[in-house]
């Protein structure tokens, strides 16, 4: 009984092998394997990325443990490394940039989805999406030479005069600083908010609008009380997507944030961000510990963006019922 089973198994195996060779000759199986290899390479690359970051930061992980995350001192000379000033700068610039970009972006998206005629809306959306194609170093260039003088001479003094009693807007202003970086970031993430929000607003079924209008709502009421809540998930998703971008943004922030690893209460003061410190110090890191600390910062940034991106994708998936990972 057993031998027979083995025998048929062998025959089946031989058949399989023969048909495999035939397919290989016709190119079918070869094409399958070749494309499969490339797909597997992506998987491998991503896995390797996580592994490399984890492995290369072993030194600081052993030296400081979790305390690395809330240690305030960053002093490469004495070998003290703490991530808190950078985490603080990264999170604060991102949140402030959201505070600027979300109202503006949502407003623009509502205009494009609800008010503008489709042809004009498409053309304007194309222009806004071009903003996303502008390289970040060019935002940095404009930030350094255009925005920094404006902030130093006009905006910051005005803010200090009007709101200087709040610690948020107190202290001296150099032009470079957390607020300037947030403004640049806000402009950079606007296109993401506008185009994804517009898409979710457009995917709201027509009868929702018509029902509201039929009940006597004005167009604005129909938009604000029916259409926007309906598209809520997609809009929040776009905000998270923008947040992930803002967290990881490097060049523009490096050029205007002031690069000072201090935690200041004022938005006008210089700060530092995770991405910026990696960009500035990576090639100049002299000790292995310094390099490992920078790589661990990279790992923290990676984890942060993966989580936020994941949340964003889930929400957009839920909102439009079609996402990348079906």
């Amino acid at each position, binding site marked *: 009984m057993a031998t027979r089973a083995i025998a048929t198994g062998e025959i089946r195996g031989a058949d399989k092998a023969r048909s495999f060779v035939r397919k290989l000759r016709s190119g079918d199986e070869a094409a399958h394997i070749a494309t499969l290899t490339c797909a597997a390479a992506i998987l491998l690359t991503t896995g390797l990325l996580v592994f490399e970051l984890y492995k290369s930061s072993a030194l600081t992980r052993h030296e400081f443990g979790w305390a690395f995350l809330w240690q305030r001192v960053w002093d490469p000379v004495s070998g003290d490394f703490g991530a808190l000033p950078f985490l603080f700068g990264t999170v604060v610039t991102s949140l402030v940039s959201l505070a600027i970009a979300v109202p503006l972006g949502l407003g623009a998206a509502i205009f494009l989805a609800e008010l503008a005629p489709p042809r004009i809306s498409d053309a304007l959306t194309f222009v806004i999406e071009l903003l996303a*194609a502008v390289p970040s170093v060019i935002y940095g260039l404009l930030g350094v*030479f255009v925005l920094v003088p404006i902030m130093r001479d006009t905006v910051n003094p005005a803010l200090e005069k009007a709101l200087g009693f709040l610690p948020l807007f107190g202290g001296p202003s150099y032009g470079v600083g957390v607020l300037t970086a947030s403004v640049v970031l806000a402009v950079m993430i606007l296109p993401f908010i506008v185009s994804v929000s517009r898409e979710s607003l457009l995917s709201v079924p027509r009868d929702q609008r018509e029902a509201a209008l039929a009940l006597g709502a004005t167009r604005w009421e129909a938009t604000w009380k029916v259409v926007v809540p309906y598209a809520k998930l997609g809009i929040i998703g776009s905000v998270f997507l923008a947040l992930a971008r803002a967290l990881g943004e490097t060049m523009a922030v490096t050029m205007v944030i002031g690069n000072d690893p201090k935690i200041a209460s004022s938005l006008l003061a210089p700060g530092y961000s995770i991405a910026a410190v990696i960009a500035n110090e990576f090639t100049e890191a002299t000790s292995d510990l310094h390099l490992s600390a920078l790589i661990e910062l990279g790992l923290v940034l990676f984890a942060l963006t993966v989580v936020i991106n994941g949340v964003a994708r889930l929400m957009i998936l839920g909102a439009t019922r079609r996402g990348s990972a079906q």
Partner: protein
Amino acid sequence: MILRKITNAVMFMLTGLCALATISVLFFILGYLVYYGARSLNWAFLTQLPKPAGEAGGGMANAIAGTAKLLLLTALMGVPIGFVAGVYLSEYGRGAFAFAVRYAADLLNGVPSIVIGIFAYALAVVPLGHFSAFAGGVALSIMVIPITIRTTEQFLRAVPQSLREGALALGASKSRTIATVVIPAAMRGILTGTILAVARVAGETAPLLFTAFSNTYWSHGWLEPIASLPVMIFNYAISPYDDWHRQAWAAGLVLLALMLAANIAARMILSPKAGRA
């Protein structure tokens, strides 16, 4: 009722202002770059090597060639891998493995560019022992792959199933069907996506800082550090020299012009009608 009508008008006006503000940012950017960049853009800028720090004149010929070289490497390494993997996902991809690949590509797409730089450093700089054009190409390839996969899969999926069935019914094998029917049908879209993907990484600075590094001279072969436009803009913009600032503007103008040209060209390839609108 009047109050509600006023609210209606005012709120919609505000949204219009938001849209206007957003769009005007692009024109501000363009305006500033043309205003400052065009003044410093001259023949020397395009043909000469950088002068030593503090000395006036010179150009960025090596950085322009460097960006071209890095993009060539990206087009040779990253784009084919992404394209073929995209074909797999669209034509063969089923089940858990395909899901994992899609998920990995999405993950990779969201990784901050500076982290990609660290990864490429570990992958291509540490083993070689020095910065190189090759390492820069690796970094840009890792960035371009997820975008290429996404667009390839998207456009291949949009090809009607009946085309595939027609080819199969005529006796073509699956691989032949894909190569001679499906891919040509989606070629226009894939080409557009590829142009956009390469254009996007052309402006990346962060992943090049510690892979390709920079170079004040010509870079020979593929294993020397190499200058690129984005890194040059960064270095020149944060330098204390006025002449370098001017050149940073000029380089910014060149880079942005490349970017806009690629975007508009891509849009015209995709839909000749929409390009005119």
